[in-house]
């Protein structure tokens, strides 16, 4: 498991593209929003929690199709399926690797971008915490979507259609926590419910992902 994780991380960093791309996309989306809605500071700070979360979600979506596609094309996935490590474990590791290369950098970069959007000062801590809680669910759900579409020739667009509705609960809880923090309200409830979604996804979705991979590799 550790070897696979290290291999995936090394591939993501050295093969170029995937690692920085998500972050750059996150930055560009957040920069584009003020151009779209105008530079009014009050308006920006009101919509900042939602914009940051939606942008993080789209950035996580961007690199999903790479999770299994390359391994499927060069046959590494078939080898992994015959290895002693169960496919459920492979799925989980793939999701963890995706999170480490996409979700974690997003969490760390988010406060800087919150600065651009005039996010209320008291919300920065909750922004990072809510992203840390929520992004693992995004990676895991995305891994499931990637497994469903890996055998398809034009899976990219379909992947986003399948995955985005599944992101709704995570987005609601994450953005709500930040909004509450910006308004000076208690944030425990949405954060805990977000953690429920993440833990539930991590517990259930590796099995669904592995089932989908087995169908594709059959």
């Amino acid at each position: 498991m550790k070897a696979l994780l290290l291999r995936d991380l090394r591939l993501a960093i050295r093969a170029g593209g995937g690692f920085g791309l998500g972050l750059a996309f996150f930055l560009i989306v957040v920069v584009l929003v003020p151009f779209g809605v105008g530079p009014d500071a009050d308006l920006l700070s009101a919509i900042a929690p939602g914009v940051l979360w939606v942008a993080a979600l789209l950035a996580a979506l961007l690199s999903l199709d790479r999770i299994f596609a390359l391994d499927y094309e060069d046959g590494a996935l078939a080898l992994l399926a015959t290895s002693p490590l169960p496919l459920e474990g492979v799925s989980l590791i793939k999701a963890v690797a995706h999170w480490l290369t996409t979700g974690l950098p997003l969490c760390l970069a988010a406060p800087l971008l919150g600065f651009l959007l005039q996010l209320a000062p008291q919300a920065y801590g909750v922004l990072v915490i809510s992203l840390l809680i929520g992004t693992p669910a995004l990676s895991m759900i995305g891994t499931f979507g990637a497994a469903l579409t890996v055998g398809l020739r034009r899976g990219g667009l379909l992947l986003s259609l399948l995955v985005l509705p599944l992101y709704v609960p995570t987005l609601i809880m994450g953005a709500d926590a930040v909004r509450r923090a910006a308004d000076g309200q208690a944030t425990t409830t949405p954060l805990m419910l977000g953690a429920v979604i993440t833990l539930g996804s991590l517990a259930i979705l590796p099995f669904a992902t592995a089932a989908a991979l087995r169908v594709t590799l059959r």
Partner: protein
Amino acid sequence: MSLWEYANPKKFMDWTGPVLVWVSVLAVICTSVGLIWGFFFTPDDFRQGSTVKIIYLHVPSALMAINAWLMMLVASLIWLVRRHHVSALAAKAAAPVGVTMTLIALLTGALWGAPIWGTYWEWDPRLTSFLILFLFYLGYMALWAAIEDPDTAADLTSILCIVGSIFAILSRYAAQFWAQGLHQGASLSLDKEENVADVFWIPLVVAMAGFVLLFIALVLLRTRTEIRLRRMKALQSRTRRA
């Protein structure tokens, strides 16, 4: 002799042929009686006027929108557990019907909302859940359309349907947490004292029964079409090889 024998494609075609005729006739009778009764022979509501009559389309279609997904979930589980091809095809056949019902419910709701709530759309938990359900239907149908091998498509869409069901329920409660509701509670329920008045209630139940039958008829018809398409493909590939 067991229930599963009727899932054999040949047997399924045999028994659904006559059943389909009867269900269709009953569906037409119930739907038209319920709708005509509801539209022309019920009094106007004392506050909402004649707009209340859209309930005869809105409630039955909303009911079937959810139950169609439920039926797809059951059919997907049967396919994954027992590998009956008819079951997978029935799930495939139900999706376009379900998405149409969802769309009818959303559109009639918007038309009713404009004069009563003063807005076509409001980010209310119920409305939002239905919009998300609509997106789930679209994704499900797109996945069916994208995969060529029928067995792989059936497997993957079944997995998506199960996971999608979990997330659809999650989204519903998350949306309830997220915003206050404008939509009224259930018009009909078995465990509540207060329901819609009897003059509205009876045609509504007839219309709901009509929509259930209509759904069954459409799904049977579409499933039979899918089976015939599958047979045609098999015949074509056989003649090509010969």
